[in-house]
């Protein structure tokens, strides 16, 4: 995607080309980034979000500096208190002298394309702490609970030197489970008063928790929810012969209650992963799916670019819409022109 001689990202076109030292704009930006420039970090994230032409060059320079941060995912339905929990969790990590990066994902409008990113409202006490970097990011049409670019932003904050990177997903329903492929430890945040016991027995998001967090534990209905979740956790443990049994923690994040226990539980999970080569295995799996994902994206885009440029696409739409051709045959014909001998 980054062709030689192509104009560098609009985001830093003010000093486009090469600098007096002869290094590229990307190199200069990454140098500033690695020496701790918040502005450079923020700009690189924007380049990633926009998939500007410089994206691949920048990530190439950044990648060797990644792999040190511990990534915690915080997911759950909207209104369960994920942002408030993120705030309390990050504040305690800071007390223990860890630096923290936070990626807060909120949905983009499917109609207007814009977004209202409101997670920062709950994170006021972190806003002037130089050990914390918070970035709000919109899904821009990506499904699965994260933005397409969230994995890249995790890497950027990792290379920026943050000890922990916390990823707060969009309000997740039942099937937004991408976070499990991004985080080392996934927290599933639940709150009393949403749905009956059957909801907690279903597949999907209930399965990806390394730690269950019942937030708003000062509200009514906590005991019932706890026993439902416990039944689920016990069953998963028995049925799947999992080595890790997901604990269930009670928190009231807004009052800072239960947060010490939560941080300790994440630490236990981290110690569990460190044993018997589990962490290496986990990260290898993630690397595999990430490469596959990137490869699919690149191949799809290049082929679509090529194909959509030919004017065949409009022709096909017309034919299919007027029932002169069926879409199944049309698609196979296209694949055959791109990949001779296939299909």
């Amino acid at each position, binding site marked *: *995607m980054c062709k030689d001689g192509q104009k560098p990202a*609009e*985001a830093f*076109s*003010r000093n486009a080309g090469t600098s007096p030292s002869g290094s590229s704009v990307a190199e200069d930006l990454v140098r500033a980034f690695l020496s701790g420039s*918040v*502005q450079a*970090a*923020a*700009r690189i*994230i*924007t380049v990633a*979000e*926009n*998939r*500007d*032409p410089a994206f691949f060059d920048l990530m190439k320079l950044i990648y060797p500096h990644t792999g040190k941060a511990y990534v915690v995912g915080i997911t759950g339905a909207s209104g369960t208190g994920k942002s408030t929990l993120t705030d309390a969790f990050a504040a305690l990590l800071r007390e223990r002298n860890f630096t923290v990066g936070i990626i807060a994902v909120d949905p*983009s*409008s499917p109609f*207007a*394309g*814009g*977004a*209202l*990113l*409101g997670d*920062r*409202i709950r994170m*006021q006490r972190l*806003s*002037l702490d130089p050990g914390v*970097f*918070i*970035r*709000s990011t*919109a899904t*821009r049409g990506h499904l699965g609970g994260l933005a397409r670019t969230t994995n890249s932003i995790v890497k950027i904050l990792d290379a920026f030197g943050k000890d922990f990177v916390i990823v707060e997903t969009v309000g997740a329903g039942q099937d937004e489970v991408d976070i499990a492929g991004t985080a080392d430890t996934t927290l599933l945040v639940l709150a009393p008063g949403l749905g009956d016991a059957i909801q907690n027995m279903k597949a999907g998001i209930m399965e990806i928790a390394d730690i269950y967090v019942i937030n708003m534990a000062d509200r009514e209905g906590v005991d019932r929810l706890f026993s439902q979740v416990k039944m689920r956790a016990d069953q998963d443990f028995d049925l799947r012969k999992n080595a890790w049994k997901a604990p269930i923690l009670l928190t009231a994040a807004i009052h800072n209650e239960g947060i010490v226990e939560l941080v300790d539980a994440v630490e236990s999970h981290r110690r569990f992963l460190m044993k018997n080569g589990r962490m290496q295995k986990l990260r290898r799996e993630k690397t595999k799916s990430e490469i596959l994902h990137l490869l699919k994206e690149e191949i799809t*885009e290049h082929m679509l*670019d090529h194909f959509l440029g030919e004017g065949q696409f409009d022709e096909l739409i017309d034919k299919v819409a007027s029932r002169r051709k069926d879409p199944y045959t049309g698609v196979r014909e296209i694949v055959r022109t791109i990949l001779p001998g296939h299909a």
Partner: protein
Amino acid sequence: MPVEKKVKVIMAKLGLDGHDRGAKLLCRVLAESGMEVVYTGLRQTPEMIVEAALQEDADVIGLSSLSGAHTHFFPRVMQLLKEKKMDRVLVLGGGIIPEGDIADLKKAGIAAVFGPGASTGEITDFIKKNVQRRTETG
């Protein structure tokens, strides 16, 4: 394939001022026009707003004040932006701002002030026009 660049806006309420209906409405309006709007919530200091704009790589900051403290807070935001070399950020003011104060705020670097009666379309257009001008000319 580059994705369409979105205008990123920080919308903020400064100081001891709980009147946020206007700011919240504007968040929705700007998001409806395709922008990505970070609402920081109430009781922000200029330092908090500028730090948020820095981390979010914001193109625009909207400052809302209905408490009369704008002559103190708005220029302070501009000063901090200058210190951090964030001169390209377009800063707009809104709320209850007496006519007589507007010239001074503009002198301090506030690009425009929108009071009661300003149409939401006017504000959206102003941002789109001026943000574009900034990225083109640097």
